[in-house]
């Protein structure tokens, strides 16, 4: 009998033991993210999770470190012989994970797919619109010898290196690999793709032949846990060593655990209300200003974000290059808001419809509801429509509502951050200022950083003064992890990054 009890106890213990073992084994690490990467093909990656995980598998020509400094990866050096030409010298003796050599031919094949939509189509390669956008000015790519790549652009293009840093290079054979490559991406990065189970996990293993600093982990498992409470619990139990997208309401609980660290950073992301600038009532600048004075940014950042968000002071997040530090948030002033509203012809207040997605941005619904309450005090009656993201996005693109709560971010380049909303052709708020568009193209062609800074600060000032949006706050990126994990933390570009992480 007692033997039987022993066996049962032993069996139960064994069954229950996977907890803790996950990271007790040396050289393995498990982390958790909230979003599915969907694809790890560096050419087709369409969200930050996917770009950053693909960045572990496939090295680009150049990389960006935690401070967003461009560093050499597959290209060991580069120059710009004339404003339309970029010339890269490749590192010699580097091999892809399938044994193919990293040559100019592979770089050209990867880039050709970006600049030639027909090629991508015939080869059945899904190209991310975002990544393709980085190469819209490229005219052609040349490979005069196996270790030289020349990129010719139609016009001078300042953010070329940043664009290249977001495109992992695939082997030349991937051009014909089509969907086989999507199922098993190969690159010349520090980690090799092992498996990706949508909605569950991505597994990577160390690439022993990596040309650079050898990866610290034998195996990296990235679990996809969209449910906030479950993700937080997985960190608390030690099943995972780090989690991304920490919900602000879990911060205190996590900080109470002495083994854990919670770190946050502001990113490129900023949150705001889309206002329809070309139709009543928001075609009147006074009404838009009234909205901006009526919004109590401090209250939202303090109460909903536990002080980790900051009131917005520019039309792009502070991690964006050439961010203008000299602008300041519109103060909270209900009296002024009411006066402006009366002056605009709405002495008895104004009623409008506002949409908001829910479950898309951190605390989106809470913020939208707080905004409705704040605006009410200034005389606005807001009819709030809460919708899931698919519907909300469709309504945003159709410009269905007078206003909408939303956010934008993702690239650290100001052109990306500014040109979508503030170019008439693509603006979903009806923004139309030719002056800004001229400046945007000057910024893209800027020969040096000083010129670029002058141009982008000018654009930020014009946009800020014109109040095309109801500016709200800069949203933080919050990461929590075990203290033993070093070389790890939130990045201003929101990248998931274990390239240089290690365990102590």
């Amino acid at each position, binding site marked *: 009998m007692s033997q039987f009890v022993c066996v049962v106890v032993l069996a139960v213990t064994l*069954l*229950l*033991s*996977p*907890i803790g073992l996950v990271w007790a084994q040396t050289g393995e690490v498990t982390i958790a993210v909230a979003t*599915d990467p*969907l*694809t790890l093909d560096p050419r*087709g990656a*369409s969200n930050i999770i996917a770009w950053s995980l693909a960045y572990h598998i496939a090295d680009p020509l150049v990389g960006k470190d935690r401070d967003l400094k461009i560093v050499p990866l597959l290209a060991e050096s580069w120059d710009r012989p004339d404003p339309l030409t970029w010339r890269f010298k490749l590192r010699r003796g580097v091999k892809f994970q399938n044994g193919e050599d990293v040559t100019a031919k592979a770089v050209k094949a990867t880039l050709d797919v970006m600049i030639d*939509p027909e090629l991508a*189509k015939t080869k059945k390669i*899904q190209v*991310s*619109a*975002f990544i393709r*956008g980085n190469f819209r000015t490229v005219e052609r790519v040349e490979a005069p010898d196996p270790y030289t790549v020349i990129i010719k652009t139609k016009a001078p293009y300042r953010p070329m290196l940043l664009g290249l840093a977001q495109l992992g290079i695939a082997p030349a054979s991937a051009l014909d690999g089509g*969907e086989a490559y*999507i*199922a098993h991406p190969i690159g010349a990065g520090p980690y090799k793709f092992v498996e990706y*189970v*949508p*909605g*569950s*996990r991505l597994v990577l293993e160390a690439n022993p032949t990596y040309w650079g600093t050898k990866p610290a982990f034998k195996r990296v498992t990235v*679990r*996809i*846990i*969209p*449910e906030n*409470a*479950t993700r937080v*619990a*997985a960190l*608390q*139990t030690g*099943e995972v060593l780090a989690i991304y997208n920490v919900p602000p309401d879990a911060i205190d609980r996590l900080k109470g655990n002495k083994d854990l660290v919670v770190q946050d950073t502001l990113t490129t992301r900023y949150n705001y209300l889309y206002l329809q600038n070309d139709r009543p009532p928001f075609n009147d600048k006074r009404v838009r200003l009234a909205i901006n004075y009526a919004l109590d940014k401090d209250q939202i950042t303090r109460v909903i974000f536990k002080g980790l968000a900051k009131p917005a002071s520019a039309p792009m997040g502070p991690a964006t290059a050439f961010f203008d530090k000299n602008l300041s948030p519109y103060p909270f002033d209900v009296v002024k808001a009411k006066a402006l509203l009366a002056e605009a012809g709405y002495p008895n207040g104004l009623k409008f419809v506002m949409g908001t997605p829910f479950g898309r941005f951190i605390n989106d619904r809470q913020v939208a509801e707080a905004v409705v309450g704040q605006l009410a005090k200034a005389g606005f009656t807001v009819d709030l429509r809460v919708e*899931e*993201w*698919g*519907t909300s*996005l*469709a*309504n*945003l*693109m159709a410009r269905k509502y007078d206003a909408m709560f939303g956010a*934008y971010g993702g690239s650290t380049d100001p052109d*990306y951050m500014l040109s*979508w909303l503030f170019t008439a052709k*693509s603006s*979903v708020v009806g923004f139309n200022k030719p002056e800004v568009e001229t400046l945007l193209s000057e910024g893209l062609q800027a020969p040096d950083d000083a010129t670029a800074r002058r141009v982008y600060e000018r654009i930020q000032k014009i946009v800020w003064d014109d109040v095309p949006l109801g500016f709200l706050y800069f949203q933080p990126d919050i990461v929590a992890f075990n203290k033993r994990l070093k070389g790890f933390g939130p990045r201003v570009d929101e990248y998931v990054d274990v390239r240089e992480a290690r365990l102590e």
Partner: protein
Amino acid sequence: MRNYFQQVVQAAIVLLNVSIVVFVLVRVVPGDPARLMLGMEASDDAVRAARTQFGFDRPLYIQYVQFVGGVLRGDLGQSVRFRRPVGDLLIESFPATVELALAATAIALVLAVPAGIYAAVHRGGMLDRLLMAGALIGQAMPIFWLGIMLITLFSVRLGWLPTSGRGSLAQLIMPSVTLSTYVMALLARLTRSNMLDVLREAYVRTARAKGLRETVVVHKHALMSAALPIITVLGLQVGALLSGAVVTETVFNWPGIGTLALRAIQQRDYPVVQGVVLVSAALFVLINGTVDLAYRYLDPRVRLT
């Protein structure tokens, strides 16, 4: 034989209707798979091109004919987001959900039927009231909340069970218990009320009068007839289990068709949504067909008519 044929025809009609409903529903809901995939800053041209590539620009009736034609050839189409055959995604996800549903059903049966019998036999007793109050709470409790409470208690506080994921037996415990609660409560209440009805029947009185032991009366004579409606209800609960699986799988990050369906709906991945719904409906029809057959086997009255 004619009966079986009728059943197969009925099943085919049901599935045909399901295919039409799901095909129309996913397209009626606002949202554009191409726009969701490419993002807000993608140009309208790029979005149009993607729509053409997926074939979503073709007239609806052509898309429908292609969908049904594909299904008849065993091809459920290709996922927009994962660029993989829907069939493959389903084959990867279904075993996880079946495992979860079977475990939940097993837990429900093992706990609820004895509880229901006990409550019926000791009707009005303290334990009967407790059990039935428990069943009521179980039926009313949101699965989502229960799941998070279990994680908080058994993973975070006590450290006994892993929070989520699939792989070990330990990871199966909390999700299957969570999913079982609704069915369990229903089964306990149903067993109790059926047993109460049956225990009043004349043949039970006869059995008792014959001097049979009470356990034999209850388990052989009464339970056998009380079991029939329980089996029917269990068959119908497959639907509840599948919908409960969506929530349970989300909370416990269980990689089954529930999480697949949820993601596909969020991304408007039409082929995947269609595939999940159609295959789930087929499963539902199949199980209810099986329940019908089981009925014939268990109930001589049905066999003879």
